[in-house]
């Protein structure tokens, strides 16, 4: 069983103009078959209007250990959120 088809990651754009979202993966010999299989597996109930497939080995990702250094700094920067600023009611909605 060494002839296993490569693994593909599947991204689908839903009905309402949202971005493509990762929905799962599947095996297929090539991109064309990956799209055909994705259509059969992941859009049987009107879940999508567009499909992207990417062979899993081509995806680079952050390492779980880097979570702290990469994402914690933004926790302390609350001034990046609009709610940080008190605007007087008289000014109206902003």
């Amino acid at each position, binding site marked *: *069983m060494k*002839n*296993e*088809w490569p*693994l593909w990651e599947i991204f689908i754009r839903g009905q309402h103009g949202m971005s493509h979202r990762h929905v*799962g*993966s*599947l*095996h297929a*010999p*090539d991109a064309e*078959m990956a799209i055909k299989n994705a259509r*059969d*597996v992941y859009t*049987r*109930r009107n879940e999508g209007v567009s499909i992207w497939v990417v062979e899993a080995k081509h995806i680079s*990702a952050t*390492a*779980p250990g880097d979570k702290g250094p990469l994402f914690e700094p933004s926790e302390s920067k609350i001034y990046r959120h609009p709610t940080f600023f008190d605007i007087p009611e008289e000014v109206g909605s902003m």
Partner: protein
Amino acid sequence: MYAQMIKTASAGVKSREEMTDQEREFQDKIDNDIKIEPRDWMPDDYRRTLIRQIGQHAHSEVVGQLPEGNWITRAPTLERKAILLAKVQDEAGHGLYLYSAAETLGESRDELVRLLHEGRMKYSSIFNYPTLNWADIGAVGWLVDGAAIVNQVALQRTSYGPYSRAMIRICKEESFHARQGYHAIMKMAFGTPEQTRQAQSAVDRLWFPAIMMFGPTDADSTNSDQSMAWKIKVKSNDELRQQFVDQTVPQIEYLGLDLPDPNIKWNEERGHYDFSDPDWSEFFNVIKGNGPCNVDRMKDRVAAWDDGEWVRDGLLAHAQKKAAAKVAAE
């Protein structure tokens, strides 16, 4: 359930003092309901137990196509045939979601399939029973998928992210399965005397195999403690079984059929239905491979795999040839 009697790979639940720092950090995440993701550190036994459980769950989805596939060409109307085809196709998809979840743990799908075909992995005991009449197809959707839903709704909260996400997706589709099954058996139960008789026969034969799906009693599930501590398992076998009985008895009564077990009785004090234990010796015998259809199911699975080999190899060879030609052209 779809995964029964999973042997937890562990020497027993460790106390916090016995854990290494890494293990303690891992257990804290689980206790705080933070999902474990594929590249996070995890104990080897957690990984091994998950591969067994998710693998068996995946095998069950795929083997589960066989008893229903038996009736596709004989469905009573074109609409019922289309519905049954859609359901069986869903089961193939469910198998795929679960194999994908197992693959994130480093076990390839082909390897899991090989272990199944060599008899080294199992699938749910329920699929070793035959579907003898059309009412059985209704009963399978309603009772078997109904039991699966009870289990899988609980498993949406399982600690391993990819498994939990597969369960969420599966549960959405599963309620179609239960409803189409109940709809089909309603037609039979409210039909001619012969149809009613077949509906009764289906419930009588499938009731105990369905409640066996949840696995042995808690007293006999020696492997559960560690799986519960790791939240690989979220509710105990007996808890899930009771939940299934409570929701299903009124549904049988609505059909006007006799209850398949004379001891089913509402227990005011417990706030639950009492019911008889299934014959556990039958359960263990089916698990060992001696149920009515074990041999046929494995024969059909292995034949499907072997007969499909030339297609798999052919498509891969074609893809490789095209890729090589593209490289040469660049």
